[in-house]
């Protein structure tokens, strides 16, 4: 990192927060008291006057040489394939019905985390809770009940990295993290940050990324749903595969279908600058398997990821099968589109 790029909290406030492009990854929260996350938003609680600034080194909306991350984590020199570096790509699902019932698709993430904890590969997992009257937030888990309770897609950001920062600060080791591509990038930048970035990152034992095209602004989503007459806490969200253009919200007593075109207006503005759909900086990345309800697409990127996955399969936690070629093509196309749009949005000068 070139030090002359660093300018302090002021830069984060002016270039990210005030511009409204914060994606609520939570990387800057929990490092200090000045940024706080509450109910779906990262806010500036006070102004900081400290001498060095971790926050601007790790914020995914502050420009960064991506190449240095590829080099550090994958030892490669240039931009790899459109899905990022990986060793294997496969389809899988949880072997346990109980998990598949609460999961969004195949329950692979939940199963992997459960397996990792139960076998001592990680001591803790930072996941995202369901959110009730308040937006989802990160949750430090180590029990089966907690982990299963965090299953399911959120469609909104949760600033879960806050909990990772707090866990590291309190001296916890062997932390596993499940997060969105922006969060995986921020976590990776933590490893290269000064001071003590390497030291802090050494507490992380497992990184599981989730595919993501965009995330919604929680507060605006809540207002929108209230205006549509939806009372009660949302229990599940879903976007059925094309050609249906709807967004489904389920509460205790109701199920509402809303036009995706209206929902797209509630996407976080910051998401348009994100080029990573499949969470390239992770041990394992997991997403939907289009066309096959109840299955996940799984990308194994590192040796650690491969080892965890294979052991889970051997132990009977996961079922795997080959990924159909058309799915792979579709995925590459979607990832490539996201990258193109992001680079274009940055060029149009709205990014830093």
């Amino acid at each position, binding site marked *: 990192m070139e030090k002359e790029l660093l300018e302090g909290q002021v830069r984060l406030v002016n270039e990210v927060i005030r511009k409204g492009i914060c994606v609520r990854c939570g990387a800057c929260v929990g490092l200090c008291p000045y940024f706080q996350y509450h*109910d779906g*938003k990262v806010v500036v609680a006070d102004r*900081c*006057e400290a001498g060095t600034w971790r926050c601007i080194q790790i914020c995914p909306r502050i420009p960064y040489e991506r190449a240095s991350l590829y080099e550090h984590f994958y030892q490669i020199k240039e931009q790899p394939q459109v899905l990022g570096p990986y060793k294997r790509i496969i389809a899988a699902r949880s072997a346990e019905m109980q998990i598949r019932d609460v999961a969004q698709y195949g329950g692979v993430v939940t199963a992997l985390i459960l397996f990792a904890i139960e076998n001592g590969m990680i001591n803790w997992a930072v996941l995202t809770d369901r959110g009730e009257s308040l937006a989802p937030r990160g949750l430090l888990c180590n029990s089966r009940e907690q982990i299963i309770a965090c299953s399911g897609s959120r469609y909104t950001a949760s600033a879960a990295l806050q909990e990772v920062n707090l866990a590291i600060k309190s001296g916890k080791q062997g932390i596993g993290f499940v997060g969105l591509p922006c969060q995986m990038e921020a976590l990776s930048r933590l490893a290269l940050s000064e*001071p003590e970035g390497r030291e802090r990152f050494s507490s992380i034992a497992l990184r599981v990324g989730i595919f993501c095209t965009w995330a919604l602004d929680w507060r605006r989503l809540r207002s929108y749903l209230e205006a549509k007459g939806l009372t009660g806490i949302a229990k599940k969200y879903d976007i059925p595969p094309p050609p249906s253009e709807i967004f489904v919200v389920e509460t205790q007593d109701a199920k509402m279908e809303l036009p995706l075109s209206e929902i797209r207006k509630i996407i976080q503005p910051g998401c348009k600058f994100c080029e990573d759909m499949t969470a390239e900086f992770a041990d394992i990345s997991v997403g939907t398997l289009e066309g096959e309800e109840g299955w996940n697409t799984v990308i194994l990127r590192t040796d650690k990821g491969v080892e965890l996955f294979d052991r889970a399969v051997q132990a009977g936690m996961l079922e795997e099968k080959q990924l159909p070629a058309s799915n792979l093509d579709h995925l590459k196309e979607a990832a490539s589109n996201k990258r193109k749009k992001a680079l274009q949005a940055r060029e149009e000068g709205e990014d830093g």
Partner: protein
Amino acid sequence: MDKVSTTEGGKRMLLQANEAIARGALEAGIIFAAGYPGNPSSEIIETLAKASHDLPIYVEWSVNEKVALEAAAGASFAGCRAICSMKQNGVNVVSDFLTNLSLSGTKGGIVLVSCDDPGGISSTNEEDARAFAPLSDIPLLEPSSPQEALDMTRWAFDLSEAIGNIVMIRSVSRLSHSRSDVVVGGLPDFTARPYFDTQVPFHTFPIITKHQARHEKLKAAEDLFEKSSFNYYRGAQRPELLVIGSGCAVDYALDAIQTMNLWERVGVLKLGTTWPIPRRLLLKHLQKCQHILFVEDVDPFIETHVKAFAAERAQELGLKVFHGKGSDELPSCGELRPAQLLDFFGNYFNLSWGAENFTNKVETLINGRIPPREFGFCPGCPHRGSFYAIKTALAWDDRDGFVSGDIGCYSMAIWPTGFNQLKSVHAMGSGLGIACGYGKLENFGFEQPVITVCGDSTFYHAALPALVNARFNNADILLVVLDNSATAMTGFQPHPGTGKTAMGEPTQPVDVVAICKSMGLDVYVGDPYEMKQTAEKLYELMQQRGPRVMVLRRKCALVQGREGGFPYGMHVDQDLCIGEECGCGRYCTRIFRCPGLIWDKEKKKAVIDQVICVGCGICAEICPQGAIKKELK
């Protein structure tokens, strides 16, 4: 046994002017006293309350000044002598009743004491309450010393009964809080027997007739003033300059004339009866010379009225040259100080004064290195916790929300001690009144959440009608009542919620929560020491509509200090503290700013000041490194 109520007549004792006013009232035989706390007036009722343990009198802290004057008037209508005291803002509050009372007239001697605060040392404004004397056509007396304060107060009741109307006495902070040796008079037998003569009602009708009668009363007072020893002249028989003034300002003028040896050239007409100004006396002295200087606090009150009089009598008086606030030769704002009078005389008579060599030397030595002393909440103050929670909740909400403020210790939240949260402070209860305005702007696109704060005493004084208004008009207001069980800023006087009266008797407390509930409002009670929980609740309430109330309840730290103190011993773990580094940036001392937390510049660590810290323990929550430790003592 209290010295004010027990000292025999003829004795000389050290008295504060406010105590002297109380003594004067006792010597006049008052049996009723009411007021509302307000600096610099509070000691008057406090002294009388103490006296009530020795003497058969009744003293109360009323819920506000208007009710206080009304109650005192009740005693007067029943033929008893009564006194009512307040600060300048209180006179604004009583003005509607006062202008009617002076029309209906009174029976038992009744005196209104206004203690003004020139310079606004402990006020939200600077105001000259003397304006209410001509407005209500009532006599006005201004003491210039604690002795005079006693003598005038005693006499004012005779005057009030002689003319059948209320009399106003006006003091200022400098006088009220000063002490001097005073010779007291004797105390009477307190033989008042209240009786309302139903043959003699107290109407203001017919208005014109009553108004004319009021003017007659004033004329009668003026006649008495012509002979009053509260007015006197000192100095040259044929002065080059005549000084006319009242109050402490006259004392400084006398001092300056003495210092500069000007008694041959200057004369001073000291006025103690300043409305109506006795015109024959005035005429006599105005004839002495052409140049007139006016010295008084705060407004050019005497100045303006004398100028008008001089204009009326121009044929006899000839051309006059007036000096004072109108000529910009004395400042028109702030408290008049000795240096300003020395400056004036120096310029006028072309004399030098002062120790310029010395002051220049000191200024050079000091070279601007003396920092100002910022006001702040005491260590352990619950308001610190309340405003920290409010600041946090408003930040989380992120819609440019703000706080509408009111009067009390918590008014200091306009400053860094309360994180600069208050964006407006006006009169008692105004915080909620203004919020009723914001609360109806949503339909015009107003989206900023507004939190209103008011103290427990303020709630009873003036916020109640505004709360009824909010309920009635369904305004979007979020009221946070800061209940520290005290009227703290003015000195811990009891109020309707504290369960005790001014005279120390137990009474049924008036419960803020019950009142709100009776209006159909949901009320949440929280603890300002639990800052995170309070912030979460406030955030939740900010997302709702309509009138909402939260009560944050925790005793004032100074009261708690007297009632057993706090449970914790605090220290900062020097190994865990990272000070200025990223991750903290001196958060506790720079942002939280409790006087018990100090920044050690050498060690570059935060440290607890064990002399100042009281051990409330709430700072332990805010350290990002968990370095602030609390242990049960």
